[in-house]
């Protein structure tokens, strides 16, 4: 069991590292959102799954799941808002256009 937990937590951390790397290296806002939401959704989910067997009681486990669900909802909404704002600011920017990188640097 403990090795499974190590594996899950390690995979979760890997997703966070990859997500952060994407946030730093990707060219424009849309791709950055794409990268960082992987960290929030999958990374935190894997961390939570890895920590679940260590919980002492059912309410504690439920609280962990609740944290993950709340972060899921919040990060989805926040990513949508950021993407919406960028799209409204420059309507011709296609989600995969790398040329918009310079004007969204601010």
């Amino acid at each position, binding site marked *: 069991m403990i090795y499974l937990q190590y594996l899950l937590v390690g995979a979760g951390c890997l997703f966070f590292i990859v997500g952060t790397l994407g946030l730093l290296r990707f060219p424009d806002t849309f791709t950055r959102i794409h990268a960082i939401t992987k960290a929030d959704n999958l990374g935190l989910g894997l961390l939570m799954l890895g920590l679940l067997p260590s919980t002492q009681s059912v309410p504690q486990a439920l609280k962990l799941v609740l944290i993950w669900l*709340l972060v899921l*909802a*919040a990060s989805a*909404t926040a990513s*949508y*808002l950021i993407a*919406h704002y960028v799209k409204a600011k420059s309507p011709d920017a296609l989600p995969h256009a790398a040329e918009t990188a310079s004007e969204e640097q*601010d």
Partner: protein
Amino acid sequence: MQFAFDSMLGLGLLACAAGVFWSRDLFRSVVMFIAFGLLLALTWVRLEAPDLALAEAAIGAGLTGVLLLDAIGHLRQHKEHSPRNHWLLPLLCCIALALLLILSLNARPEASISLPELVAESLPESGVEHPITAVLLNFRSYDTLLEIAVLLVAAVVAMALNDGLAATARTSAEQSSRDPVLAGFTSRLAPVILLIAVYVLWAGSYMPGGAFQGGAILAAGLVLLKLADFHIERYAESLLRLGLALGFLVFLAVATSVMIGGRPFLTYPEAFAGQFILFIEAVLTFSIGLILFSLFNQSPGQEVPHDN
């Protein structure tokens, strides 16, 4: 392992503090400040002061961060960025403060009475099981009474300064485009926030929590609703003003009504102390939430919608 975590935390705090001062963009500074607040909350947890951690996360990082972001939005409109090259004086002040703190750590006087023991001894009389709640609302309730009075005065001053401005913004920003996703998310989250605020208040009698933390969470929920274009403060403005003062008034009424029975000001009868404290805390939570929210609500960031 713990040492590694602690040193990472300390280094992270220093890095965030440096980021606040040295980033060129004001927005970045504020984001770093919020990150600094969250790391500071974690530090309080590591120092086994979860009450402080709750307050720091809710007020220091959350509400102050929102207020600062709001102020930046306001500054951008007026293009009046303050010059950021005045770093010598703050640096000198910081060094002087740090030196004083280090010196005072060395020359720490011996406490004449041991307060923790005193609190632990009289905890059964206080009506609650958590020492910090006992200190705040029973042994040193003077402080709490004055704190809520100060908060109330701050909110009233903000309202007085801002009355005309808020009135103009109110008519102009009528039913702007409410984002469906944000509105849906916020309306589903609001009951959860309310539940957590009440839980933190209730938990305050036997574990970290209490009126100020609960009130800050309540205020955060109200700010979120406000940002999502639910103009809750418009539905009942007179009720809002009453609610601002309710906590202080009820606290004062309870504090003075015990004098009828011949007790000194602010001492509760021991049999009912627990109920008295819970009642006062409930009203305080409500008022603190409203006061913090109305401080945010009074900030002149409201001008933004009708400029666009």
